[in-house]
Structures are given as C-alpha cells and as structure tokens.
C-alpha cells in the first residue's frame, strides 16, 4: 500500500533517501539534515501526508528527529528520520510550510533543546516557567 509513496520518494530523491520497510504499513526513511525540509515538504505537499506528531530522542549518535506522516489514503505511516549534532542541535522549521508542525516542534525544543530556525513562536510549551531557559528534561548530557 505504501509502494507508490516509496517509488515516488526514490524517483524524486534517489539515494538521498535510505528506505527501510518494517512491514507493509510502517516505513522508515533516513535523510541527511540538508534534505530534511525537501523530503518533509514532499511528504506533505506532494504525497498529502498528515503530520501525526514527531518524536525527538537523545541517542548516542545525537538528537534523533522522527517525523511521523500518516498516509490516511493508504492506511500506512511513513516516518522521516534525521540525526542532529549535539550540543546545539539545529534544523530548519517545517512550520512555515505546514502549520501543524508549530506545537510539535515547540515540544521538541522544550524537551531536547533543538533550535528550529524560522519557527514563528519558539517558546517552550509544557515546562514550568520557573525552570532555567537551558533546562531540557530529556537531554542526557552530563
């Protein structure tokens, strides 16, 4: 069911996308930081995916971003992954192309300190106001 989406990604981006199919309903696509906005925009504007949410994780390789695109017309979820370098992870915000990313990116900034450049309202969203500005609850730095 996600075959068409995978073919489109391959034909548009070639080997800039590293595609792994967990099963017929779950696809994971790894891209570089430079290709992040082109691929996520493609998922929204061309493939008409719906951004369900995004998972940020502090892993040994860096800060991993995983944007989950629900493909309601195909009944699958296509996940776009990239890894940002610590200690100051930074990437362009998707919000100006896709407003749904607004709160989602604010949450990742709040908990992991990722700077989303161009975000219209880059404030923390859930943390208490009395926490220090550089407090990010899910960071594992010492």
């Amino acid at each position: 069911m996600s075959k068409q989406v995978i073919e489109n990604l391959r034909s548009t981006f070639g080997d800039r996308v590293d595609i792994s199919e967990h099963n017929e309903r779950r696809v994971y696509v790894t891209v570089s930081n430079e290709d992040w906005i082109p691929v996520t925009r493609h998922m929204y504007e061309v493939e008409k995916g719906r951004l369900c949410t995004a998972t940020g994780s502090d892993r040994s390789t860096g800060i991993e971003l995983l944007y989950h695109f629900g493909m309601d017309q195909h009944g699958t979820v296509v996940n776009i992954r990239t890894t940002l370098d610590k200690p100051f992870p930074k990437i362009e915000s998707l919000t100006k192309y896709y407003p749904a990313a607004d709160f989602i990116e604010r949450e990742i900034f709040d908990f992991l300190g990722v700077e989303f450049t161009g975000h219209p309202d880059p404030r923390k969203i859930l943390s208490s106001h009395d926490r220090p500005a550089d407090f990010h609850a899910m960071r594992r730095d010492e």
Partner: protein
Amino acid sequence: MSTTIPIGPFHPVLEEPEYITLQVDGETVLSADIDLGRIHRGMELLAQEKTFDQDCFLVERICGICSASHSWATALAIEDAAGVGPTPRARYLRTIVHELERLHSHMLWVGLAGHIIGYWTVYMWGWKYREPVLDALEAITGNRNNYAWYCPGGVRRDVPDELWPEIMKQMDEFADNTNMLIGAVLDDPVILGRLKGVGILTKEDAIAYGTLGPTARGSGVDIDLRRDEPYGAYAECDWDVIVQPDGDLLAVSVVRLLEMLESVKIIKQCIQNLPGGEIRNEIREVPRGEGIGHVEAPRGESFHYIRTNGTNMPERHKMRAPTFLNIPSYRPRVKGETISDATVIFAIIDPCYSCTERMAAIDPTGKRIANGHDLIKLSHQKTEWLKKNI
C-alpha cells in the same frame, strides 16, 4: 484599541495569564494565545521505567476520558514492534470497549456544551444517559474509567456471555435517547442561533493545522483511522464515517451526535458476531526495533511510538493525544468572533474538561479583566438574549 481578555475558568483569578488569553477589540476577538503545561507530569520519561504491561496502564491516565484509546494504541505499538497481533476474540472485545468509551465521551461533551450555552437540562440529561454506558464498562472491565484491561496481545479479562443481553438493551435505549437529543438540538432555534455559522474552520485550515477527529470531520476532512487503517473489528462491521462540510460549530456537533448512533451499530454487531477462543496471545519477546500504534479516540487520533531494545521496557515512548493538535485550530476559529462565543468555540474541539477550565483574559496592563466563569456567564447571557429576540 485592543484589550486582552483572560478567559478564566472555575478558577481563582491569578496574576499571570492562564491557559488561553484573548486579545479583544471591543467585543471582537482579534487573537488567542494558548499556554499549556498544567497537566504535564512527565509521562514519557516515566514510561521508560515501566514494563510493557505496566506502560499500558500508565498511559490510560494521559486523559481520563479516552483511557481505552491510549491503552489500545500502546498495545498496538508493542504488537507492531513484536510482530504479534491480538486474538480474534480480543479484537472484537477491544472494539466494544473502545466504542462504549466513544459513547460516554461524546455524551459527556453534549452535556458540557449544553452547560456552556446555558441549557442545563441538556447537561443533566446528557450525563444521565451516560451512566448506563459507564455501568456497562464497569461490568466488562471492572472500572468505570481507567480499565487496566488492554494489554499487549489482547485483553486481560474475558467477558461472561450473561452480560451481553443487558448491554444490547442499554444500547437500544441509548440510541433512543440520542435520537431524542438530536431532534431537540436541531429543532431549537436558539441552539441553532448559537452554533450555526459560528467559529468556522475552513477545510484548508483544518488540513494545514493537522486537526483530527470530529473537529476535522466537521470541516469536511474525510479522515477516520477506523476506516483508513482498520484495527480491531472495524473492517468487519457495517458503519459510516460521519463528515459534515460547513466547518461551523453546528457541523461539528452534528458529527458527534451522529457518530454516537454509528457507535451503537458497531457495538451491537460486535456483540452479535463475537468469536470464541482465547483473549490473549502471549508475547514472549519484543525484539530490538520500533513500533507505532494509533487509534481513533473520541477526539481524534491518539498516536504512540515505541522504540524497543530487546528488554521488557520501552527505550522511548512518544505519546500524542489528539487535543494537542486540535487546540491550535482554536485560533483561526475564534478570530473575528465575539467574546460571548469564545468559550463555546473552545468547547467545540472537545478538550478535556480541565482544559475548558483554563481560559483567561488579560488587559494590556497585565490585569485580568474576566475569568472563565465570567466568560461562561457572557455565553449564558447571549443565549438569554437570543431566546427573547428569535
């Protein structure tokens, strides 16, 4: 000249702005700012210290009204990672409880919406009709909410056959009561005056903001995970997705009212076709990897992502409740509307009750002008005015 109006709730007036602050010019709302975090308990970090079974119980408490949804989505995510599904009987049982939850959640919303626009009878009736659904849930799972019943591989307790005839009877009564309410709501010119043409969210905005559930379906966005990525027994039941094109408060209300009737259909079919057999497939091992589970909760998609590392605990568990994506759609909805409609417009996305509590209006000097209690009073005043002038 613009002023900022705090929408206060049943809540004391405080110095800082609260959950939602409205900027107002006279009676018209210019914009709304939303501040979250009062229910932030650090669940994603807590989940990393729970086993998979315990995790399903933890996530029920993300939101009390859709506890089954989060629990089922978590179980689905673990099953996705493990490559093991539930038993056929479990699929049907899970669907029954999920739809019962949708019934009590939508009827709760009917009551709250009634309260906000000043129809206390609707509030009392809605909550009265909810009670048999909670009794059914208690008979099946052991609790009125927070069921501790969904688990990876199936469900924890079977349901004795003697319960089903009474539940079927309650479903017929619920459908009758719902039909009565639908007739009363759609016939009442004052309720129509409060809801029709108010708080419009266009289809383009609904898609751009990523809105979910009835909030999106009321703007013509035809998405429903139960049909789009069938889980449970939905593919085996005959039911319809309810979509309304107008995008105003009335359209979303109609979606919720009609969805209750569809849920009754689904529950009855599941009971009639319930397969026998085991209620749980045991999952002995969850290999290293990742899994995603998402379900159509009463408010929209509940999404769970789990990363596993071969142990019996999640390495990372991302949880996203539907209201998180529906809340930003409040801003385009309320812009240009009057402050007496501000609370009912917010209530249309069906946030958790405690979210409706947290509205505040603040003036440019930082002082509160009105709290949520005041704004609800303004809403009641508008209804009274309409009653006299329609």
